[in-house]
């Protein structure tokens, strides 16, 4: 195990990524204790440029922008990581089940995955949000479903290879039941892959949450959120560009951080799932 950590430590890219992610998590967790102002309260004149009282200036309503930026990742990160976790575990199990049972179940799952991949994510979400309402729970669920598709494919492919191996065959010959074989024999063998899936799906889920908030389909004002903040700052893009730049940098550094860390770790451990990285 220490060798595995040391292999990661030798990759500068992985270290940069891990540092970025840790910095973001630290900020998100500790923000309530050190932010100078309540992020939803009007504390000064609107669109104040940065100075000593308001380090990042104020936004279009006169709220402290530093406090809003510091708090602006918390919900998005919560949504993204929950969705990523559900996607990795759920997708992993469904994919393994498809590989195990094959037949009609596999056909149905595979066609559904293809169908989903053919529908733009934004459209998919807007259908859901109109149907079930715009709550955090709905958001997590719908993003988890979207991000699950990739995890299903990955684990199905890995599961197909496992099905040819002696220890799975031996369990079948013992007469063990499908769910037991999937959980006892197959799942532990793909746990590395699912870890990578979790990280990559979380980073792309973060992008999706921000995009949705930007479009008004995600989190709703007055919650401080980077996507919402970029949307609000659009009207002032020429006069006060930092209102867009700062939250945009926050989103990108976190996404890049996750991707670097994942790619570095997967590379160091010889996993193939990290190819391609997060997108959309």
């Amino acid at each position, binding site marked *: 195990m220490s*060798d595995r950590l*040391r*292999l990661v430590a*030798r990759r500068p890219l992985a270290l940069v990524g891990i540092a970025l992610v840790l910095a973001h998590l630290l900020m998100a967790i500790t923000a309530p204790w050190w932010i100078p102002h309540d992020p939803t309260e009007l504390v000064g004149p609107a669109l104040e440029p940065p100075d000593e009282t308001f380090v990042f200036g104020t936004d279009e309503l006169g709220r402290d922008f530093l406090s809003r930026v510091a708090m602006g990742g918390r919900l998005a990160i919560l949504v993204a990581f929950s969705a990523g976790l559900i996607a990795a575990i759920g997708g992993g199990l469904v994919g393994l089940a498809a590989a195990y049972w*094959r*037949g*009609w179940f*596999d*056909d149905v799952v595979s066609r559904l995955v293809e169908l989903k991949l053919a529908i733009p994510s934004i459209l998919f979400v807007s259908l859901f949000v109109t149907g079930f309402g715009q709550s955090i729970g709905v958001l997590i669920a719908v993003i988890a479903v979207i991000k699950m598709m990739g995890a299903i494919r990955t684990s199905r492919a890995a599961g197909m290879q496992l099905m040819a*191996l*002696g*220890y799975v*065959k*031996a*369990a*079948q*010959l*013992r*007469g*063990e039941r499908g769910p037991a074989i999937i959980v006892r*024999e197959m799942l*532990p*063998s793909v*746990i590395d892959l699912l870890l990578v899936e979790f990280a990559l799906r979380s980073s792309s889920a973060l992008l999706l949450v921000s995009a949705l908030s930007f479009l008004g389909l995600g989190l709703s004002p007055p919650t401080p959120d980077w996507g919402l903040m970029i949307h609000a700052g659009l009207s002032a893009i020429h006069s006060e560009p930092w209102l867009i730049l700062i939250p945009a940098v926050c989103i990108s550094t976190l996404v890049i951080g996750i991707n670097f860390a994942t790619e570095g770790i997967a590379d*160091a451990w010889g996993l193939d799932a990290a190819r391609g990285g997060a997108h959309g």
Partner: protein
Amino acid sequence: MAEGASGAPPLLRVEGLSIGYRDAMGRVAAAVRDLSFELAEGGSLGIVGESGSGKSTAARALLGHYRGAGERTGGRILIRGKVLDERDPGSLARLRGIDVAFVPQNPLSSLTYHLKVGAQLVEILRTRVGLDAGAARRRALELMARTRLPDPDALFERYPHQLSGGQRQRVVIACALACQPRLLVLDEPTTALDKSTEVQVLELVRELRRSLGVGLVLVTHDLNVVAQMCDEVLVMKDGARVEHGPTAATFAQPATAYTRELVASVLRLDAAAPADRAQHAQPPLVEAQGLGHVYRTGGWWRGRAADAAPALRGVDLMLRPGEVLGVIGESGSGKSTLGGALAGLLAPSEGRMRFQGEPLPGGAAARGREQRRRIQMVFQDPLSSLNPRQRVGTAIARPMQVFFGLGRRQAWDRAAALLDELGLDAAFLERYPRQLSGGQQQRVAIARALAAEPELIVCDEFTSALDATVQAQVIDRLLQVQARRALALVVITHDLGVVWRMAHRVLVLRDGLVHEQGLTAEVFANPASDYTRLLLSAATSASRQGQDSTLAQAANA
């Protein structure tokens, strides 16, 4: 050994060669240590050793090629008196193919799959020999005829996947000969081929060597191949030379214990085949009548794809308690399908099976718990037959928990006893499969099968992933257990040595049909068909050479 006294430099001279591989952490692991040998013009040297002995690494170095993170850490290689410098691309280009040519193991991956066979030969002849298009084509056809490819004009226009394995290897050899090299390096040239094809390809190489006078360095794990092909043999272990000398003498009287062990692990017909110990008085354990199987493709909504040729056709079989049945045949002969049907991996599409007088349904899911318990299986690849995330103890305990409802403590105690029976320490219970050697893994897999206290174990190529000396240990252990418990075994293998050592009776499969069957000693002594004779002849030359070196010399002349 070395005859370079005439003044002219020898064809090949290796002086104190050391090669190391650098891992991701920067540590260098030695793969070849201080290796020296010489080869005269037209000489032939076989390098044998088990996997990890460094034989392939050493052979590739003769072309200045180092795989991945490998590098030369000491010594030098001289080809016809000239030092080989792998860091100089120019001299490598003048060396490869022209002085030294290489024939790799897998002929399919060494040919470009989207180029016609003829075009690949022509390309070499045009770029390396400098022939024009017409001359290159004529020469390519000549080379194809030379390597005994049937109907060169037709094959010239084929793609690699349209050729058989043996034909592909002939094409690769033709490519290697294109620039008339002085030295041919063959790395396991027949390992991917069936026995009967192997005989023909080796015959070709022998004939080419005689007529062209090229030197030969042949890397293989198969002592029989060396016995047929090489005047000298170099035995390697852990990267170092164990023994080097004339083939016949070395095999007849090995100077080291390791070589003795290697030679002993090869099929020897002078040892007695296992006697027929079956308990004839008892009713049959397994009976099968008219077993047939077709692998079907296509799903419920795609419609049924065209059925492939049957893998198994009308196979009858009978096995008594305590009897060992060997099933042999080439790849595609249906032997694994037969094993899978008996073990319950697949439901045969035709035929009936009975076990202990009761009907035996196809497929484990359709069988009762007792039948599943009484029939166990040992798989080919020992590593993948054990779950990498489970400790050895967990793996062996599982069948006892499933079949006998034992608790974890009890099951682990009995697992320790099983390991002991197979010559492994109880400390192995706590280890993970990756921490075990191949032979240890396979013994654990056998222990897992025994945990169910079966009456029959189906062993599918259970030794083919193991090195020769390890094979012998695993087979011995299994035979002891078999005798002690009066187990019935079905041993599926392409290795006739395994059948000779283990099986009371043998069943020869070909194209899914039973080709021949009988007592092992009788079938081996008097094969009733040419096919069986061919299978046997490919497997027995090393032992013949060990017994009678004059015969071996005659074969080499």
